[in-house]
């Protein structure tokens, strides 16, 4: 495995860890999968659709999200929004994230 491949793999692992937090933070309002993908990309976090959609399903199964199908034009879209359970958890996750950043800043300084 080359250094470039190693870097890619480790970066991917690092990003994977933060996607849940990123997704939950952006779902205070309703978003469908593709719009969320674009929103995250606009904010600088490129997420593979193969990662995002299964993650949305998993978070919904865990009760963190709610979803509803809506017909827009001729196309049905599944809209996701953070659930009450997710809303309760989000501040704690943010706190946890801030803690990690703070620790890592100290370690990497």
């Amino acid at each position, binding site marked *: 495995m080359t250094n470039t491949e190693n870097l890619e793999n480790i970066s991917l692992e690092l990003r994977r860890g933060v996607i849940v937090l990123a997704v939950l933070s952006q779902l205070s309002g309703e978003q469908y999968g*593709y719009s969320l993908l674009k929103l995250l990309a606009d904010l600088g976090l490129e997420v593979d659709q*193969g990662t995002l959609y299964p993650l949305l399903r998993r978070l919904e199964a865990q009760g963190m999200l709610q979803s509803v199908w809506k017909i827009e034009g001729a196309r049905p879209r*599944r809209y996701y929004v953070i659930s009450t359970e997710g809303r309760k958890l989000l501040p704690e996750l943010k706190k946890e994230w801030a803690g990690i950043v703070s620790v890592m800043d100290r370690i990497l300084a």
Partner: protein
Amino acid sequence: MNLIDRYVTEVGKRLVLVKGHADIEKELHSTLEDMLEDRAQKAGHPADKAMEIELLKEYGSPDKVAETYNPFPYLIGPRLFPIFVILLKIVLGAVALGLTIAMGVQIIAHPPATTMELFKFIGQGLLNMVSAFIAAFGNLALIFALLERFTPASELKFGAVQKVGSKFTILHSADEKEEWDPAVLIKEPEPQDVKIWEPILAIVFTLFVIYIFNFNRQWLSLNYYDQGIWFVGFGDLITGKLGSIPLFSEAFFHWLPLMNIAWLAEIVLNGMLLRSSQWNISTRLFSIGIKILQIVINLLLLAGPFILGITAGALAASKVMDMNTAQAVTTALRQVIPILLGLGIFGKLVEIGQAGRKMIMQDKPAKV
């Protein structure tokens, strides 16, 4: 069905065991449509086939996409599941066919003495078949589970397979470095393709018909008991019956040689279809010829004496009904049978028309 529909269907085939797979397919479809629309807007022209292919190529092979939705370890994963299903169908079909033939041969070689024995024999045969199905399923599942566990994806030389008509197409190689090509989804199933089980079933059924009409004519009878219970078929095997009335008259069996020719021709036709796996000009013409012969037989039956052996006298003699009722029944039958034969002729004419149309539309050269 456009390319996105086909792609989603392919992904769906790999997710049949995943809860909510219909929802996943719907969402995937919607996302791909969104992405395509986005690309079309950026390109400044409506989405075309090339754009669709490019999008699906980037999105990844159906295997790869399906794998992301499988949260749990599986016995047989998405990369092997489609080929497992195809092989399972083939194996179960072969087991069913083999056991059915074996059962038929055994019945012919050692005919059961009573109806009860016959039913017991058939029941035992069905139980054997269920056991064989379970064993075949178990063995195949075990082989695939072992492949799934111990064979890395890179070592599997066969990728996902797609069934197009009766043929199987390798959808993509499991070699990660080899790109999958969505263009394989474009290929339409060919209308002349033959499903393998159709000719097999037709041959087995025709052989059964030939056997009964030629060697066990007595089975084609209406049997009655003292309490007025009626039973059609296996007339000579029933114990304790009072009597039986043959279903068909001698006038019907007069044309049996001609019927045998038609049935044997059907067997030859289905053998040809089994061999070539598709309809071609020769088989279509042969099929039209058989249908013409069947029309001729129907016309001969229609023009000749009454083909049913059920007469008012025989019905009255059974003491299940009186003479007046028996006459009413036979009069009704005499009116219904010509109508049925006429409908049969009409049906065959329609089939000839359809076969002719397909033959004209078929642009492929004859294979046989």
